[in-house]
């Protein structure tokens, strides 16, 4: 059953859902879907969302990442937070329709995980948890926003090139604005990813949490690959004649690698994953048991 704390999250999702409808509606029929109401929905949703995470953290005296459900909710929270901040700082009302549509779908999907008993494997020292997981999550949230910005860029670019101007044409900002923000979100996410990876490396080596061959863990490898791809993107954009459309396309490709880093280890059976707690209890397994069911977020 859903308990009263979880219903706060359901409430947040409900507001996100209303917001998505209003945000998308206001693109087409501004007179029916007022922007002010949409702002109310998104801010109320975000407040409920953060209240839920704060209550979870206080209850477990830990970051809200101990189950797959919790870390999904945490991740989605960071995406909405970054999107809302970007929207207000850069006066970019057209960002949230895209973000909220995607976030709402993922939120609804994450409700399905609400009763899961998947918990993070391994003993997580609180310090490392903070310096490893928070930067990486923030970095990924920034990459998600940059991915959404790239889609907006390509949409606007197509309309300008093909001279086929739809309802979105007026509500989307200029290419330069989008290009600029893609760049800003990536340069915001990249150092965070770097910090997360470095601290993760130190943690893995010092605590031996992933075993002797920690560097062969699929998630570690994919994480390093993600870092390389984004480093290459930054390098190209800074150095070569690499602007606009190409950056947007590569950003989308990079985000697919980010997703792969999430999902991949689950398919490959990494130690770096969420394990089914009931199995742990049954088998009383050591932390580096390879044979157990693992699900990666």
């Amino acid at each position, binding site marked *: 059953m859903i308990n009263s704390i979880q219903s706060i999250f359901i409430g947040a999702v409900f507001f996100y859902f209303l917001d998505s409808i209003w945000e998308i509606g206001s693109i087409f029929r501004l*007179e029916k879907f007022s922007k002010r109401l949409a702002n109310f929905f998104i801010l109320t949703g975000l407040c409920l969302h953060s209240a839920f995470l704060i209550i979870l953290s206080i209850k477990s005296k830990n970051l809200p990442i101990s189950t797959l459900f919790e870390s999904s909710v945490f991740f989605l929270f960071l995406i909405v937070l970054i999107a809302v901040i970007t929207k207000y700082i850069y006066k970019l009302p057209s960002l949230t329709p895209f973000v909220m549509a995607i976030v709402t779908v993922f939120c609804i999907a994450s409700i399905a995980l609400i009763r899961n008993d998947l918990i993070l494997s391994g003993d997580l020292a609180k310090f490392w948890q903070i310096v490893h997981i928070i930067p990486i999550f923030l970095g990924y949230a920034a990459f998600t926003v940059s991915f959404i910005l790239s889609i907006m860029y390509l949409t*606007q670019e197509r309309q*300008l*090139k093909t*001279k086929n*101007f739809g309802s979105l*044409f007026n509500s*989307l*900002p*200029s*290419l*330069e*604005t989008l290009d*600029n923000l893609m760049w800003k979100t990536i340069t915001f996410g990249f150092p965070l990813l770097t910090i997360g990876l470095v601290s993760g490396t130190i943690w893995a080596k010092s605590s031996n949490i992933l075993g002797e061959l920690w560097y062969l863990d699929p998630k570690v490898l994919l994480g390093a690959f993600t870092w390389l791809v984004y480093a290459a993107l930054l390098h190209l954009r800074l150095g*070569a*004649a*690499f*602007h*606009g*459309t*190409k950056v947007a396309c590569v950003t989308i490709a990079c985000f697919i690698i980010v997703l792969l880093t999430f999902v991949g280890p689950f398919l490959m059976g990494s130690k770096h994953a969420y394990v089914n707690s009931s199995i742990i209890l049954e088998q009383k397994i050591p932390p580096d048991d390879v044979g157990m069911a693992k699900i990666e977020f």
Partner: protein
Amino acid sequence: MNLHTIGINHKTAPVEIREKLAFSASGIPVALSSLTQSFPSSEAVILSTCNRVEIYGTSPDNSLNKETLMDFFSAFHGLPKERFSDHIYHYQNINAVRHLFFVTSSLDSMVVGESQILAQVKEAYMTAASLETTGNILNQLFQRALNVAKSIHAGTEISKGKVSVSSIAVEFAVKIFRDFSDKTVFIIGAGEMCELVLKHLVEHGAKAVMVANRNYDKAKVLADEYEGKAIKYDLLRDHLFEADIIISSTAAPHYVIHTDQIRNAIKARRGNPMLLIDIAVPRDINPEISKVDNVYLYNIDDLQTVVNKNMDVREKEFKKCQDIINKEVENFMAWFEELKIGPAISQLRTHFHNIGEEELERLRPKLRNIAQDEWEHIVYSMQRTLNKILHKPARVGKEKAKNGGGYQYVETIKNLFGIHHKDDSKK
């Protein structure tokens, strides 16, 4: 008590006449006070813009009407009536109200849907209100007109989408570039359209301007006007990469800008986007260029297509706006007629009672020896009869006033019984 408006606009009069009849900002207060002094207890508002000059007026005794307003125009501007009488339009009551609502909502403007007229009507009204030349009727009328216009702008698409080629060009620029202060605009050739686009871009913050023209002196003149630099026509290809926005409109019979030139320019610009606008016919810019990445090319047809599309949208919205206006005109007229129906009914009552009294006076000598109380019975009976006859028309009149149509009703009743206000007969 009738509402009148007379005026001229861009559809009825050429600019030579309009400028003669226009009121300057300082002239309006003078005109208003002289008008209300000549016609005491009248109300008046003067609207004077570059496309129209209109006076809205009403007076309780109907001394303000088409003729007197025409005389006023003629006297104030010292222009014989014959010079402008052919260009003048005159509307009365419901038509005057509808006209004002149309004007304020910019359905009567040269560019339908423009928003400037709303501010102009507001200013005209505020000027008159501050001079206290508006009263109950014009206050109500203008406040309603402004509200109608606002709801039309907000509730319909009449003012959405640009409808001039130059503003569409700027709209494209706005969707490509965020900030124009660090952008360079390159004008190739000359012409009114180029200048218009340039002017819009400068208004949006563009600072750096380059001009190339076959005639170097012409280029120099335009460049100087915008504090830009003139470029020798033969060297224009060397400067392409410096430009973020190129507007081309030469009379050349062949392409002036070729694909490889732009490809090189983009390379030199490290992929920074370029906007090319080709207003020339025959075209100046090779259309193949639009295939180059990060280059956005529009020719005159592309711009015109968007203009036409936006015009269509406005035309479709016109009907919707008319419906809103008709409803609001009805509402106003109901209010206005309610004001008028009271006096009209007392007029009717006086008329009937006067007839009754006349008849009684004729009857009295014929009934020589009638007792006083008997005579009073007769008088009383006559008054009751008249009141009973009048009861129904009065009640219906009030209902009509509420639901609209009171005006026609009053007119019909007046015609039916031959009642004419002493000033009505002047018309």
